[in-house]
């Protein structure tokens, strides 16, 4: 809406009145933000790249928070009969660890990549709703901080990340922790819904000419599947959380069996969301690996349509397996049988992906760079997690494994070994594109091997512990149970993972310093890669593409560089320097920064505190939200006062049509003028959430 394509030049040079129009500040309160540097440029930004980087930084911060909680858990369990944490505190720590890792690390880190890369991979200048993009970041961040503030305000949630009733009820959890859980997740859910709508529309609507759906890179495809899953999964957890809030704060009894409610309803609602959520977390990493492996094998992805199709199949089938989390709940033989079968079936598309990655590597000229190492790590580790997952599909076995460390081992192999390893690979792969310098290769290898070894030491023994019968969510064990040795090994492994994260942070700092001292630009295409984002300079210019590319084939950029000779052998047909973009844009029209998303988002946690502590707190929150929405409506998505190019702020009017048409006395009219897009609509959408 805010991005005017090159194909429609702005007719800057043809006769319009060169007098700049008066640009009234929106509502006369705030001047339109203009900063291009410093913290202001980040706070106001609507640029998908800056938003992506902020998602990344914030999720990494929460990775450290959640990792610290994990270390506390492991320390507590390192020796039998440990009294480091009380049972109550232990409940809070593992709950906060789980929720933090799921909703504040894996999901937003995937969002970071999705935000940064989807527009680049489909050849767009930004997402379809740039301000809504900023809104989803700020709402998510506000919700995450709100949720974690529970540590300081009476203790964290203590019901496990899936927070089963009746434990989640006021009777068994009288503190405010679960209230923070419910409202924090509701707030983050609003942010995720906004972002899911935004990215779905972006993928459907903002593709470059010629970029048909089946020419999109696999990463974009997988993220598209994820966004659609989010669109449909989030309202289900929203219902569950609303009912929980009504139970805890307004005296209803939806999940209270003693008053006629049904704790089962929570389990069903939670897992109808929760199982698609598993794929929401892992598919983005699958997408990244599907980008990295072809590049470092120098072969196209094997079976692209099957790669895409299996992703879609996973997305669909993910809706039909939720009750395999509930085999031990006594829901009846028929249900157990049906969900056993569907769970076995969903292993098929996942297996297709793994075999396709291996077939991509087969016969390729593999280069074991750090991103590739992480990708191979994902393929291996996720396969282990997938296989232990298949063992859960057999209900009799699963009844034995339920609530043991075997389950903990399984989902860490899937989410750490799958999602996190993939995203670490993604960081190394796209770092030069994002920041204009490489991460250290040697340190990166240390990082990878430490992480792989630490990960296997931590979670591998949990298979054994679980099969021996060690229960999860129990704060200690006795020395006669025979769990001591593997628990100690697991704790040592956890500290090795911590060390690997420190290595990564050191890598970030030192590679940046090295770059400062001796700047060497990696060039547009440091890996000899395949998709569109490598066609533009590194770091990505603010306007992404000076000229929107016209796409003819899948792996367009690769096909511009390479062709085949008569024997079918790969030959270079053009030098990379000749293919990458170098032209300087003059008519690029970028969406203008805005305060309003931040204002709107700030109101949300205030309403949350109001609901929990004192309704008066909600008043400023509601005022901020309403002000945010109406400020947003009254503000054109593109500042009439902003310039055109990335650096030419020469104050010419952006909207010649509006200037010509609007009578002088209806200056306000320009605020929601035709070419400024339907700002009203965008905001109304926010309104309706």
């Amino acid at each position, binding site marked *: *809406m805010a991005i005017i394509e090159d*194909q*429609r030049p702005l007719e800057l040079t043809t006769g319009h009145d060169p007098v700049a129009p008066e640009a009234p500040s929106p509502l006369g309160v705030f001047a339109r933000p203009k900063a291009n540097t410093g913290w202001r440029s980040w706070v106001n930004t609507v640029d998908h790249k800056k938003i992506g980087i902020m998602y990344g930084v914030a999720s990494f911060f929460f990775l450290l928070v959640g990792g610290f909680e994990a270390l506390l858990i492991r320390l507590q369990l390192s020796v039998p009969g440990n009294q480091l944490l009380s049972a109550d505190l232990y409940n809070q720590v593992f709950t906060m660890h789980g929720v933090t890792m799921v909703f504040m690390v894996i999901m937003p880190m995937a969002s970071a990549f999705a935000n940064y890369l989807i527009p680049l991979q489909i050849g767009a200048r930004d997402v*379809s*709703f740039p301000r809504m993009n900023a809104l989803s970041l700020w709402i998510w961040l506000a919700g995450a901080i709100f949720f974690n503030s529970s540590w300081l305000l009476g203790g964290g949630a203590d019901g496990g990340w899936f927070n089963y009733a009746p434990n989640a009820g006021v009777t068994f959890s009288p503190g405010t922790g679960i209230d923070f859980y419910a409202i924090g997740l509701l707030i983050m859910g609003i942010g995720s*819904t906004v972002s*899911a*709508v*935004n990215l*779905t*529309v972006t993928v*459907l*609507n*903002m*593709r470059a000419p010629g*970029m048909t759906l089946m020419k999109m890179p696999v990463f974009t495809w997988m993220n598209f599947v994820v966004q659609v899953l989010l*669109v*449909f*999964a*989030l*309202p*289900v957890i*929203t*219902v569950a959380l*609303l*009912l929980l809030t*009504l139970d805890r704060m*307004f*005296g*209803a*009894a*939806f999940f209270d069996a*003693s*008053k*006629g*409610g*049904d704790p089962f*309803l929570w389990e069903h*609602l939670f897992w109808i969301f929760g199982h698609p959520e598993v794929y929401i977390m892992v598919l983005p990493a699958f997408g990244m690996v599907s980008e990295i492996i072809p590049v470092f094998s120098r072969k196209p992805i094997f079976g692209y349509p099957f790669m895409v199709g299996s992703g879609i199949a996973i997305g669909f089938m993910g809706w039909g397996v939720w009750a395999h989390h509930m085999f031990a709940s006594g829901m009846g033989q028929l249900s157990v049988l049906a969900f056993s079968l569907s769970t076995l079936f969903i292993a098929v598309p996942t297996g297709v992906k793994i075999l396709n990655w291996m077939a991509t590597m087969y016969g390729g000229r593999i280069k074991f760079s750090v991103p590739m190492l992480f990708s191979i790590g994902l393929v291996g580790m996720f396969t282990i997690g997938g296989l232990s997952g298949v063992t859960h599909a057999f209900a009799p076995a699963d009844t034995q494994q339920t609530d043991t460390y075997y389950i903990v081992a399984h989902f860490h192999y899937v989410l750490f070994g799958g999602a996190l390893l993939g995203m670490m690979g993604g960081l190394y792969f796209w770092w030069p594109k994002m920041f204009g310098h490489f991460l250290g290769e040697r340190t990166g290898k240390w990082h990878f091997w430490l992480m792989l070894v630490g990960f296997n030491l931590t979670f591998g023994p949990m298979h054994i512990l679980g099969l021996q019968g060690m229960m999860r969510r129990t704060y200690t064990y006795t020395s006669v149970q025979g769990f001591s040795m593997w628990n100690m090994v697991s704790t040592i492994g956890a500290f090795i993972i911590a060390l690997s994260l420190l290595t990564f942070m050191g890598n970030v700092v030192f590679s940046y310093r090295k770059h400062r001292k001796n700047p060497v630009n990696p060039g547009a295409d440091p890996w000899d890669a395949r998709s569109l984002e490598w066609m533009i300079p590194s770091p990505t210019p603010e306007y992404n593409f000076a000229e929107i590319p016209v796409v003819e084939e899948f792996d367009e950029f690769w096909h511009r560089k390479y062709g085949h000779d008569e024997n079918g052998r790969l030959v270079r047909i053009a030098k990379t320097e000749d293919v990458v973009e170098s032209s300087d844009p003059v008519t690029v029209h970028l969406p203008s920064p805005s305060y309003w998303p931040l204002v709107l988002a700030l109101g949300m946690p205030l309403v949350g505190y109001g609901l929990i502590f004192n309704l008066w707190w909600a008043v400023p929150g509601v005022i901020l939200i309403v002000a945010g929405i*109406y400020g947003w*409506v009254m503000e054109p998505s593109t500042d009439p006062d902003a310039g055109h190019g990335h650096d030419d702020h020469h104050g010419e009017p952006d909207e010649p049509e509006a200037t010509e*048409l609007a009578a002088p006395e*209806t200056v*306000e*009219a*320009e*605020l*929601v*003028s*035709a070419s400024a*897009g*339907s700002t*009203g*609509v*965008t905001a*109304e*959408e926010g*309104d*309706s*959430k």
Partner: protein
Amino acid sequence: MSDLAYESLEDVEFPDDIHTTSTGISNEKLGMWVYLASDCLLFGGMISTYLIYKNRPGEIAGLSGNTHKVSEYFDIPFTSMTSFILLMSSLTMVLAVNSVIRGDLTRLRLWLTSTAVLGGLFLGGQIYEFTNFVVNDGLGFTSNVASSSFFALTGLHGVHVVVGVIMLLSMLAISFGTRIRAEAVEVVGLYWHFVDIVWVLIFTIVYLIP
């Protein structure tokens, strides 16, 4: 006199975005469709909750509260009337969209106002109905799980109507100050029709099916 510029009229037939979006549907409209798809599951979850609980009020003597179902007190003729009012508001919404496409701002304002008023009447009916349940029949939100789920479901729908009315009134206000985009009204219309359709479902499932 029309405040709509000629260019905007042209945009109605050939919206700008057709040239710039891959699907040919504008971002705003597609975004609203995607959001409404998401909203379907919100109501789906709430309707399921009601269906699970509607027949189990006061099952556990002395513990689970009031033994009456909320459905015992439904006033079907009254609710049919408010449902009819809400359905008619869809008609006026269509007329509003039609007026803005023709550039007829006077009629746009008339139909926007009527839609908002009809929505308000529906809300008034809902408030009357709720009050009736609470005051005359003694069935409040916390009386039993059946009434909790009834109030939660119809309340959620009511909140959607309130948001819709606010959007309609905002559109009305915008139509006085600025040149309003036909598509903005159309997108609000999408939302409004969705809320109506959901009510048709709720009315059928909750009120009509015993």
